[in-house]
C-alpha cells in the first residue's frame, strides 16, 4: 500500500508542476483548452494526494511497522481513533495531511466558484497547484512519510500520551483547515493581480472562503486552548508559546481583513490594504508552519527538527518576493475610489480597528521573534514569556474590545453629536454601572475591571442594535418581537452574525479577566486528610483525600487519586479523580514518561482543577495541586458563540443585496455590472 502512496506522491509532483504552469499560461493566453486542463489537473491532484494520504492511514491501521513513520507514531495497542490521528501527529504525516487538505480545498474552489469569476480560475488553479506542489516536494524530498526501515519492529513507539486526547484528534485538523483554506483567498488575490481585474469581483468570490478559513482557525485555536487546559495539566489555556502565537497571527490579520473588506465593498477604499492583508495572512500561516517545524524558536509544540525548515524558509522568501512584485506592478490599478472624510465615522473606526488588529499581530510577531532579534543585535539570547506578552498585548486587546463596541455605534461617513449621544448612552451607562459595582465589591485589578466594564459596553451595543432593529421591524411590519428578531438577523446575516461574533469575543475577555483571581494550593494529603481553598466568589472548598486506586487499561497503567469535595461544608457533587497514566506497549513495557490527567469540575463561575502530582514514598499519601480557575468556562462558550456567529454570517442567502421581485429591498442596494454595491447612508442600511 505504501508503494501506491509513494507512487501517488510522485504523480502529484508532476501534476502540481503541470497545474502551476498550465494554469498561468492558460490564464495569460485565454486558451480554453489549457484552462480546462488546469481545472482538471486540480481535481486530479486532489485525487492522487488523497490516495497517498489514504495509503498512510491504511499503513497506520494495519500496523505496518516497517514504515518508519508508523513505527514512530503508532503501536499495536493504540486505540483506532488515535491511529488515524497519528496521521498528523508527526512531521512527515502532517505535511502530507496539509497537501491533502489543500488538494481538497483547491478542487472545491474550482467546483464551487460561480462561472462569473471564470476569468480568475486558471490563475487560482495555478496558485493552488503551486502551493500543493511545494508541500508534495517537502513530503518527497525532506519528510517522506513512506520511508521504510531496514527491519520491521515487533511494535511501534506509540503516540505521545498528550496527543491521546479527543481534543487533539480534532484540534490539529481544524487548525490545518484554517491555515490551508487561507490559500484559497490568497490564490484569488494573486489571480486578481495577475489578471489585472482588481474590482470587487475577487472579494465577492472569496468572501465565503475567508469566513470559512476564519471559522476553522477560530475553532482550531479554541480547541487548542481546550486541549492545553484539560491535557497539559497546568491549569491554563494560553501560554504565548511561539506555536500558539503562530496560529494567532493569521487569525488577527484575517479578522482585520473581514472588517476592512466591508470598507472596500461599501466605499471602494482600502483596495491595496485588502490585498496586503490577504497576502499577509497566507504568509503568516506559512510562517507559523516554519516556526513549528524549523526549530528556529524553542517551543513545547515543536516537531522534531529537520531540513523542512529550509524548504519553508525558501518558500516564504519566494512568496514574499512574488507578491511584492505583483503588488508593486499593479499598484496604480489599486487606486482608492473614495477618501475617508471624518474621524468620527464607521469607516474611521474600522481603520483604527485594523490598525489595532494588525498592530497586535505585529506585537505578537515582534515578541515571538525578539529572542532572535536580541541575539542578532546584542549577541545575547533572552526569554520572552507570558509576562512580556501580557504586558505588551493586554492594553492593545482592551483597546480592541473598546472598538468592538464603538464601531457599530457610529454611522457610515459621518456621525453627528446627536447620533453619538443617542447611541452611546445605554452602552456607556451599562459599562459605568458594571465598573462601579465591581469597584464597590472590592475588585482592584485594573485590567480585569476594565475588561469587564468594556465587556458590558460591547454587550450594551449589541443588545441595543438587536433591540432597535427588531423594534423597527415590529413597527414597520407589525411582526411580534421574536419574529422581528429572527427576520432581522436572517435578512442581515452578515451584520448581525458579526454582532454575535462580537458577543463571543466578549465572552473570551470575561474569561481572560478571571485569570486575575485564580487561586491555587499544593498539598500532600494522607487518606482522610483535608485542605481548604477559598474561592474568589466567597465560598470555601474543602478537599478530602479518599485514596489511590491502580488498574490496567487498554494501553496504559492507571493510578487514580480521588478527592471528596465540600463547598461551604456540604458535599458538592461526585468525588474528583485525577490520574497518572503510564502508557505501555503491547508487551506491557512502559513507553513514554507518565502523563497526568487533571480532574475538572466546571461551572459558569469557576472551575475546580485537581492534579495528582504523585505519591509520597510509594504510599497513598498523595501530592495534589488544587486550583480554582474563575470564569474559564466562558472561553469555551465564547468559542461556541464566535463560531455560531461566523456560521450565521456565512450562511447562504440573506444579506442586504437580497432581492424581492427584482427590486432591491428597501432601496438600499444597487446592482452595478455583476456586483452588488450597497449605497452609503446614515445609519448603516438594514434590510427591514
Amino acid at each position, binding site marked *: 500500500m505504501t508503494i501506491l502512496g509513494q507512487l501517488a506522491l510522485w504523480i502529484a509532483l508532476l501534476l502540481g508542476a503541470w497545474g502551476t504552469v498550465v494554469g498561468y499560461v492558460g490564464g495569460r493566453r485565454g486558451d480554453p483548452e489549457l484552462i480546462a486542463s488546469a481545472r482538471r489537473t486540480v481535481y486530479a491532484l486532489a485525487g492522487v494526494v488523497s490516495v497517498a494520504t489514504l495509503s498512510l492511514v491504511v499503513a497506520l491501521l494495519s500496523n505496518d511497522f516497517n514504515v518508519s513513520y508508523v513505527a514512530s507514531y503508532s503501536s499495536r495497542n493504540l486505540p483506532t481513533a488515535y491511529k488515524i490521528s497519528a496521521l498528523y501527529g508527526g512531521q512527515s504525516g502532517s505535511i502530507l495531511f496539509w497537501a491533502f487538505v489543500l488538494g481538497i480545498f483547491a478542487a472545491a474552489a474550482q467546483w464551487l466558484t460561480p462561472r462569473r469569476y471564470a476569468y480568475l480560475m486558471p490563475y487560482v488553479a495555478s496558485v493552488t497547484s503551486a502551493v500543493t506542489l511545494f508541500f508534495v516536494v517537502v513530503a518527497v524530498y525532506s519528510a517522506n512519510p513512506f520511508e521504510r526501515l531496514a527491519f520491521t519492529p515487533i511494535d511501534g513507539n506509540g503516540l505521545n500520551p498528550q496527543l491521546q486526547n479527543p481534543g487533539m484528534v480534532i484540534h490539529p485538523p481544524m487548525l490545518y483547515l484554517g491555515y490551508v483554506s487561507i490559500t484559497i483567498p490568497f490564490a484569488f488575490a494573486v489571480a486578481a493581480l495577475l489578471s489585472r481585474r482588481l474590482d470587487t469581483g475577487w472579494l465577492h468570490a472569496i468572501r465565503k472562503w475567508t469566513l470559512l478559513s476564519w471559522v476553522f482557525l477560530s475553532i482550531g485555536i479554541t480547541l487548542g486552548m481546550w486541549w492545553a487546559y484539560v491535557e497539559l495539566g*497546568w*491549569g491554563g489555556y494560553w*501560554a504565548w508559546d511561539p506555536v500558539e502565537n503562530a496560529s494567532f497571527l493569521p487569525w488577527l490579520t484575517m479578522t482585520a481583513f473581514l472588517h476592512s473588506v466591508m470598507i472596500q465593498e461599501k466605499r471602494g477604499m482600502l483596495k491595496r490594504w485588502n490585498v496586503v492583508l490577504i497576502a499577509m495572512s497566507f504568509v503568516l500561516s506559512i510562517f507559523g508552519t516554519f516556526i513549528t517545524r524549523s526549530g528556529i524558536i*524553542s*517551543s*513545547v509544540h515543536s516537531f522534531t527538527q529537520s531540513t523542512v525548515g529550509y524548504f519553508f524558509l525558501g518558500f516564504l522568501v519566494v512568496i514574499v518576493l512574488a507578491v511584492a512584485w505583483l503588488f508593486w506592478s499593479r499598484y496604480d490599478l489599486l487606486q482608492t475610489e473614495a477618501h*475617508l*472624510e*471624518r474621524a468620527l465615522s464607521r469607516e474611521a473606526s474600522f481603520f483604527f480597528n485594523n490598525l489595532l488588529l494588525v*498592530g497586535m499581530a505585529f506585537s505578537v510577531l515582534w515578541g515571538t521573534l*525578539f529572542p532572535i*532579534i536580541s541575539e542578532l*543585535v546584542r549577541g545575547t*539570547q*533572552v*526569554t*520572552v*514569556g*507570558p509576562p*512580556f506578552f501580557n*504586558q505588551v498585548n493586554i*492594553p*492593545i486587546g482592551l483597546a480592541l474590545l473598546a472598538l468592538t463596541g464603538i464601531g457599530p455605534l457610529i454611522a457610515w461617513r*459621518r456621525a453627528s453629536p*446627536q*447620533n453619538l449621544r443617542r*447611541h452611546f448612552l445605554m452602552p456607556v451607562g451599562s459599562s459605568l454601572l458594571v465598573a462601579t459595582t465591581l469597584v464597590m465589591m472590592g475588585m482592584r485589578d485594573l485590567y480585569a475591571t476594565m475588561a469587564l466594564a468594556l465587556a458590558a459596553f460591547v454587550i450594551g451595543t449589541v443588545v441595543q442594535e438587536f433591540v432597535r432593529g427588531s423594534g*423597527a421591524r415590529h413597527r*414597520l411590519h407589525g411582526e411580534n418581537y421574536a419574529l422581528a428578531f429572527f427576520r432581522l438577523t436572517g435578512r442581515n446575516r452578515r451584520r448581525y452574525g458579526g454582532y454575535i461574533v462580537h458577543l463571543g469575543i466578549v465572552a473570551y475577555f470575561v474569561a481572560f479577566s478571571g485569570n486575575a483571581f485564580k487561586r491555587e494550593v499544593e498539598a*500532600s494529603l*494522607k*487518606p*482522610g486528610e483535608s485542605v481548604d481553598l477559598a474561592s474568589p466568589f466567597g465560598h470555601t472548598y474543602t478537599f478530602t483525600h479518599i*485514596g*489511590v*486506586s*491502580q488498574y490496567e487499561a487498554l494501553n496504559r*497503567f492507571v*493510578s487514580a487519586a480521588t478527592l471528596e469535595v465540600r463547598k461551604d461544608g456540604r458535599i458538592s457533587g461526585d468525588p474528583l479523580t485525577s490520574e*497518572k497514566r*503510564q502508557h505501555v506497549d503491547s508487551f506491557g513495557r512502559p513507553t513514554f*514518561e*507518565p502523563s*497526568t490527567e487533571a480532574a475538572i469540575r466546571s461551572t459558569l463561575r469557576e472551575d475546580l482543577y485537581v492534579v495528582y*502530582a*504523585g505519591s*509520597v*514514598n*510509594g*504510599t*497513598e*499519601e498523595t*501530592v495534589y495541586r488544587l486550583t480554582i480557575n474563575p470564569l474559564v468556562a466562558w472561553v469555551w462558550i465564547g468559542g461556541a458563540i464566535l463560531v455560531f456567529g461566523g456560521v450565521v454570517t456565512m450562511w447562504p442567502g440573506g444579506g442586504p443585496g437580497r432581492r424581492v421581485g427584482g427590486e432591491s429591498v428597501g*432601496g438600499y442596494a444597487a446592482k452595478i455590472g455583476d456586483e452588488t454595491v450597497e*449605497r*452609503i*447612508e*446614515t*445609519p448603516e442600511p438594514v434590510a*427591514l
Partner: protein
Amino acid sequence: MSSTTRRDFLRLGLAGVVPVFRGQESQDTATARLWQPEMAGRPQGRVTDYQNDPFVIGIEKRLRCTCGCNLDIHTCRTTDFTCTYSPALHREVVAMIEKDMSAEEILAAFVDKYSETALMAPPKEGFNWAGYLVPGVVITMVGSALLWILLRRQTAVSPTGVAAAVGAPFGTGLSSEDAARLQEELGQLDG
C-alpha cells in the same frame, strides 16, 4: 484501590493472630503502599510551606525552568511532574530566600548563573526596551498619523455635500408611503 482494600483486610485479620502486625497496621491504614508505586510517576516529597508561599511563587514565575519546556519554574514544577530541573531550581530559590536574599537579588543571582535567558521576560534595560516599546510606539505613531490625516480632511469636506449624499438613497423602488414610513423608522433609529 481494590488490592489495597484486600491487603488491609488481610492485615486486619492477621492482626489478631500475629502481634507484630499491630504496630504496622496503625501506620499502614493511614498511608498504605500502592500496588505498583513505580507506575504512579516520579515519587514526590511532602509539600513544604515554601511551595505555597506567594513570595516564592512570585519569584519562580519570573524565572524560566532550564529543562527546555519554556515554562517558568513554578508552572513547570506543578505541571511536569517528571521534570527534575524545576524542583532543583525551586530548592535553589528557597536556599537563597533562607539566606535573606531579596527577590531582585535572587533574580540577579539566577541571571549570573544561567544567563539572561533565566528570566521569563527580558529586563527593562538597554536594547530590551525596544522589545517592550516598539509595538506600542508603532501603533501610536500610525494611529496619530491616521487621525491627523482624517482631521485635516474633515475640515475640507462641505457639510452640505455630505448631507446631500446621505439623503440620496431613499425612495429607490419604494412607494412614497413606504419610503415615508421607512424614513421615519430610520430617523428614530438614528436619532
